[in-house]
């Protein structure tokens, strides 16, 4: 399983909180399994299952309703589930929810099992306008993230005036540093 394991990775550096992922998930499954959550400071963050290699939900479940499928997705068997929600209380990512529609007591991401069976990737990955949701093996995800960081490092070396002292993804996203802005521009009003 380790060889073929695939997972979902959300690159929060690139996410703009647009809710596209939640929308298509909700369209497909009635109740979204990826949850846009607004922080007290007003940043909207998607919360979803990490499909952990060592899932706390799987261990804590009283009725062994969870299993890991051949791709490594942590999948819940709704027929076995009794709806005790111990999984939600142990999940470090609050990725499991009470089902608000349908007969199953609990809803969670299964990496779009029905779609994977047809050779498709999870819908949220396909619709994200920012490329912030990655689906693949840990190797593939690591390679993509390193690629992104490398691009950021090169950009910040090429354009230190725009990126200041920050490197990598943070620099690409934030782009204008306080120092650079203050030193370069503030003291020369035009007229």
């Amino acid at each position, binding site marked *: 399983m380790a060889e073929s394991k695939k997972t979902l990775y959300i690159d929060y550096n690139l996410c*703009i*909180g*647009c*809710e*596209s*992922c*939640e*929308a*298509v998930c*909700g*369209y*497909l499954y009635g109740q979204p399994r990826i949850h*846009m959550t*607004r*922080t*007290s*400071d*007003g*940043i*909207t963050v998607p919360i979803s299952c990490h499909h952990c290699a060592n899932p706390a939900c799987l261990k804590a479940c009283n009725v062994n309703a969870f299993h890991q499928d051949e791709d490594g997705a942590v999948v819940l068997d709704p027929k076995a589930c009794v709806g005790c929600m111990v999984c939600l209380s142990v999940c470090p990512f609050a990725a499991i929810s009470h089902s608000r529609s349908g007969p199953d007591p609990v809803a969670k991401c299964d990496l779009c099992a*029905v*779609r994977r069976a*047809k*050779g*498709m*990737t999870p*819908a949220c*990955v*396909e*619709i*994200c*306008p*920012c*490329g912030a949701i*990655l*689906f693949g093996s840990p190797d593939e995800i690591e390679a*993509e993230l390193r690629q992104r960081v490398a691009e950021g490092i090169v950009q910040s070396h090429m354009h230190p005036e*725009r990126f200041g002292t920050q490197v990598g993804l943070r620099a*690409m*996203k*934030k*782009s*204008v*540093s*306080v120092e650079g*802005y*203050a030193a*370069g*521009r*503030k003291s*020369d*009003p*035009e007229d």
Partner: protein
Amino acid sequence: MNTMNYAFLCSAPPAPNGLKAAVVGSGPAGLSAAGWLACAGYEVHVYDKLPKAGGLLVFGIPGFRIPAKRIEDAAEKLAAEYGVRFHFCTKICTQDKVCESGDEFVQEMVSLSDLLHECAAVLICTGSWRPRRLNIPGEDLPGVYTSLEFLFPLRACKMAETRVAPPQVEGRRVAVIGAGLSAVDVAQSCLRLGAGKISMLYRKTVDDAPAGRMEIKLLRQRGVHWREQVTPIRITGEDRARKLVYTQAGVDQNGEQELDVDLVVAAIGEVPTNPFPRELRLEDISKDGQGWLQMTRFEGVFVAGDVLTGPSKIGRAILSGLRAAESLDGWIKSRDPNADAAKEADHG
């Protein structure tokens, strides 16, 4: 990285169902609907007044938030693999005058009745492109922009078009009115373009800012001057905007204050751009009750996205587009049960 895929509902292009559908507007709602319809076997024609697909994803939201190339590739995928035909620089109209951002690019006009004649159904996803106005004196002076008037040329001028001139920002003093996501985008763009001084003015407090406290805090860290509980009174200047006069609650009761400015950008929201306001009254559409979901009082004309709901988030527009496409398909199939042959074998 994967290519973005609006036709995400099917694993491969389906067999054609012999029906034509038109989508007006290629923003998130229009592209999602086009993807849905393509997966159901329709010959989809997408019309847009701009020279590229994406709508506000490409022409409103800055590229450092959404990479324009990713949207371009997604539209290209729809065209190349799913046979979706894009008709750019084309506006669907009645006799009414054109008057919004983006009309600079229009080369061809097609009437709604022609479209309805050629296609089994039409879906209107024209978004919210008409900016709300401040309604204060001096608003029409040169140097006063709405958020879309400001952001659109920044994006559009990169397409080697000479029709639009981007606002000159470097070294200038900019006042941004509003604290929503487009106000933040304007301020961020000004930072990137090297504005001399950026002030952000908002009628309520930072806790009420629709963009959230964190975005405002980050802008302030980068040197943006934040003024809250501010009411703009007028913009003055002989030839162009030079001063913004405002009052601020709690600072000096009834006292007017002045801010020296070169540019004023009013980012106080947009209103839906229904292309046929007299014929298609959007308030008549039942949002989820009776009749076909999102169908207008004209048989076969549907609406989706911001034009129906007012400005919202990308996800809401996508969902609206998908639901409207499903409703449109249901309406067509209900009239002609024989058209069902290739129906969405892969949907699910």
